[in-house]
């Protein structure tokens, strides 16, 4: 079991969450080229090592999180809210 330290709920089992995917993808503008959309939707770096990824705390606070996790050892380096505004508020509170 991976334990994820949700910034809203505290440390919980990963089975409370669903895995989203690569958290570093910059989705292009709606009218961007086919090539840009192909790159964002289909192409992956597929890192072995520390990667930033999205998790959804679906059986908790339902917030989307950005998690830095090692895809080989499953060690987690950081967890923060995916919404930049929310992440900023949380940082100030600490």
């Amino acid at each position: 079991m991976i334990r994820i330290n949700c910034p809203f709920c505290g440390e919980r089992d990963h089975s409370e969450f669903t895995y989203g995917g690569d958290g570093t993808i910059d989705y292009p503008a709606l009218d961007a080229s086919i090539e840009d959309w192909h790159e964002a939707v289909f192409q992956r770096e597929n890192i072995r090592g520390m990667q930033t990824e999205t998790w959804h705390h679906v059986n908790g606070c339902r917030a989307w999180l950005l998690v830095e996790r090692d895809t080989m050892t499953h060690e987690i380096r950081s967890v923060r809210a995916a919404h930049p505004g929310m992440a900023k508020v949380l940082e100030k509170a600490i």
Partner: protein
Amino acid sequence: MTRFSAWNVFVNGLTGQKGWARQWRDPEPKKKYDVVIVGGGLHGLATAYYLAKNHGIKNVAILEKGWLGGGNAGRNTTIVRSNYARPGNREFYEHSLRLWENLSHELNYNVMFSQRHHVALLHSPAAIDAAARNYNIFRLTGTPDAEIWDLEKLMGTIPHLNYGPNARFPIMGAAVQKRAGTARHDAVAWGYARGADSLGVDIIQNCEVTSVKRNKGKVVSLQTSRGVIEGNKIGFAVAGNTSRLWQMTGLGKLPIETHKLQAFVSEPLKPLLDHVVVFGIGGAHFYISQSDKGGMVFGGDLDWYKSYAQRGNLPIVQDVAEAAMSILPCLGRVRLLRHWSGVMDMSMDGSHFICKTPLDNLYLNAGWNYGGFKASPGSGWYFADLIANDRPDPVIENHDLKRFERGVNIDERGAGPDPKLHG
């Protein structure tokens, strides 16, 4: 190589089993080969075998970072079937199944291929209709053994499934492929290795590729843990770790994520289950067969997050155990003997890649999702054909890296571009 035959078994039985040669050589790598295949799994071994057998290209090396049968060749549930419905996949898997049917004779090695039926349980009238549509496609495209069984036929054939009226998903029938079944995974690796070696292929184990040297549009050489090896043509067949090797070539991203899939084997039992049984509905996913040693071999879903770790998580163990209990409650007191996890290339549409690459002399075999074991003979066949002739056979012409740019998805489940959903 000594051929296996009744006569040789008889003679060696009388002479202390001293007449058998080793199954394949352990050669030092040469400096240069016509073709270098990276990855000594089932796909790499089959590719080398068919390069030598079908195309007469015998100056071939297989580079394996570990030992034969130590990767995903030994981390699967050994199920073989061809009930795929999308164009391209249909012809590919049916061809692969036909190769399986003659594989023991072809290789002079008993791969213990057992055509014991693949029985996928159906739980609603809509599921029966959907299965009937797919199975009509199979029958119309050269797979004569697709059948839909009603409940009476199913209960008569496999009486000990949970047919209780209180089951969460009562069983209403089954979609059956009769020529599908299981094979002995180690024997497939060893059989192809022995066959390839006897045709002149060098199988080089403990040889990990650490970097790829390029000169503009070509691969020049591979730096390995056993020295520099050159090849006129290079083939990658390292599903699970394709992205890592790909990045060594400097070609960037791939439409692949690496996920891990667990499987399980129980203590050996007396004969209990004569078929491959599959249960999949409403979040449950479960497939089971009984090995020739008696162990119940079964598996379920991916671990649901990207991972290169060859070890599984416990929530999935529980999910799989629950699925087992819901269709075969008689397994409740059976103990698990072993459980393992393999890492697989999950692609964006759940289908594979056998294709040319942006580099002139580099060929890719990747993206096998859940389907790698059953595919291995066909995969080797078509990959060898691609490497030898430098053009894809029409069967695999859409199994290239550019298909998403063309708007072509070979998506059996209709799950969309999310690799973890293509289980």
